[in-house]
């Protein structure tokens, strides 16, 4: 069975998919499979190291770190999905419009994208939250907006290549309505590359959300997030390094595996590695 897999083409996906699935399952079923209530305080076991009872130890308020890491993964996943959703939808739409209309519309849209691209996500998040207040929703919005230009540029480039194909010009000459050409002939060719970009963007979104929470701009305590857990652990780094270490490792594994999944999807979609 394993011998029949084309490793050059599917290898990365086969290796990273289990980690990705593990992250999704752990976050989806966190309330059921977590050993403790992630919010329950227990002053008797403050700052205890990993043990049989608490596999990853406890924090300064005696909460179980493993349960909190699992609970925190839910925020990371939701932020990642929503931010990538905003970025992929907005970027694909803008990219398709820019490529289809061309000329002035293209120039204006893409220069606007260049401006958005210049904004560091953290700065945009700070501006948004200064106006709308700190919340996870605003963090998702800020990260999502930052992703739009990347998706827009990618979509525009792919759409422009498709538009130069004779089959597309044949459709135009048949009088196929513009909207139908964009949705039925161009969009299906764009989805593959967008999917690859989405996997990489997802890992970046998780990282950004943690950075925002670390700065106190994302999830607010007592709501656990990998970022604010790492920040809390900073104060106890000498006595209880596991408080920061556990969410740090979880963050690393998630980002790493989604990044590799993106590379893996690229291999799967690469016609040169086929057969």
């Amino acid at each position, binding site marked *: 069975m394993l011998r029949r897999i084309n490793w050059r083409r599917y290898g990365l996906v086969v290796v990273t998919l289990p980690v990705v699935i593990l992250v999704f399952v752990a976050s989806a079923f966190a309330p059921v499979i977590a050993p403790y209530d992630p919010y329950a305080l227990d002053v008797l076991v403050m700052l205890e190291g990993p043990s049989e009872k608490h596999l990853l130890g406890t924090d300064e308020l005696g909460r179980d770190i493993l349960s909190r890491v699992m609970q925190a993964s839910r925020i990371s996943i939701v932020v990642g999905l929503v931010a990538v959703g905003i970025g992929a939808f907005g970027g694909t739409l803008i990219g398709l419009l820019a490529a289809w209309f061309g000329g002035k519309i293209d*120039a204006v849209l893409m*220069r606007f994208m260049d401006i958005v691209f210049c904004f560091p996500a953290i700065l945009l998040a700070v501006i948004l939250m200064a106006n709308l207040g700190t919340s996870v929703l605003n963090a998702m919005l800020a990260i999502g907006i930052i992703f739009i230009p990347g998706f827009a540029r990618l979509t525009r480039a792919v759409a422009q290549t498709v538009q130069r*194909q*004779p*089959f*597309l*010009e*044949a*459709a*135009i*000459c*048949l*009088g*196929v309505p513009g909207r139908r050409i964009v949705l039925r*002939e161009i969009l*299906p060719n764009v989805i593959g590359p967008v999917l690859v970009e989405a996997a990489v963007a997802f890992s970046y979104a998780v990282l950004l959300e943690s950075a925002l929470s670390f700065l106190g701009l994302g999830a607010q305590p007592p709501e656990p997030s990998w970022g604010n857990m790492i920040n809390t652990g900073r104060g106890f780094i000498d006595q209880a390094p596991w408080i920061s270490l556990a969410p740090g490792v979880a963050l690393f594994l998630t980002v790493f595996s989604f990044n590799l999944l993106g590379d893996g999807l690229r291999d799967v979609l690469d016609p040169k590695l086929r057969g």
Partner: protein
Amino acid sequence: MLVAARNLRKTFRSGGLFRRGAGVLALDDVSFSLAEGESLGVVGESGSGKSTLLRTILRLTPYDAGSVTFDGAEIAAMDRGALRRFRQRVQPVFQNPYSTFNPRFSVGASIALGFELLGNVDKADIPGEVARLLDDVGLDPDLASALPHQLSGGQRQRAAIARALAVKPDLLLLDEPTSALDVSVQAQVLNLFKDLQGRYAFSLMLVTHDLPVVTFMCDNVLVMKSGAIVERGETGTLVRDPESDYTRKLVSSAV
């Protein structure tokens, strides 16, 4: 006149929002006309502007100055309805048969699109019409369910002709329709065009670098060089007694 072009000019410019790059003059004061039922050839080397001329008449490339009329109406000034009717009366067949069909749709689905858009055939009758068209261009009607990559180059070019004929066009514009095909298939496809022209009664404009194709297919011919028409006339006369050096070179290289 079915098509009349007057003083057409087109310059391709590089550059962006603030910059105006140097341009390439692709059409330089081009005027010609094409009568109903006529077969007009356009010959020239690559880069002579012949393909741009064809794309201009297809309304795929906008022109900078001059005018093109189809059946008396300026094509650049058409409203939605007029443009839709124009699209159905003028059809292209492109050079490269390998990318002329969307790889995701079956050949039959691509051909059926013309009937769907025209709306002159009952939905239930479309498969029958597609089969009849395929038969007309010398293909097995069973190929309707095949994907484009399952067909040979010659078969695909025949299918492309079927797609163009689905809307019963008055004018067929051919851009190097045989240059990507094997020599043995080229003659078959050209004969097919002649045969179909008798049955479907369309006018024809053919762009090629291959003079023998034009002498076989066309009544009249335009010779283009660097965007301008250097010579024009009845095909037989022009080949027998070319006036310009450029045409003479084309004729002698073709023999």
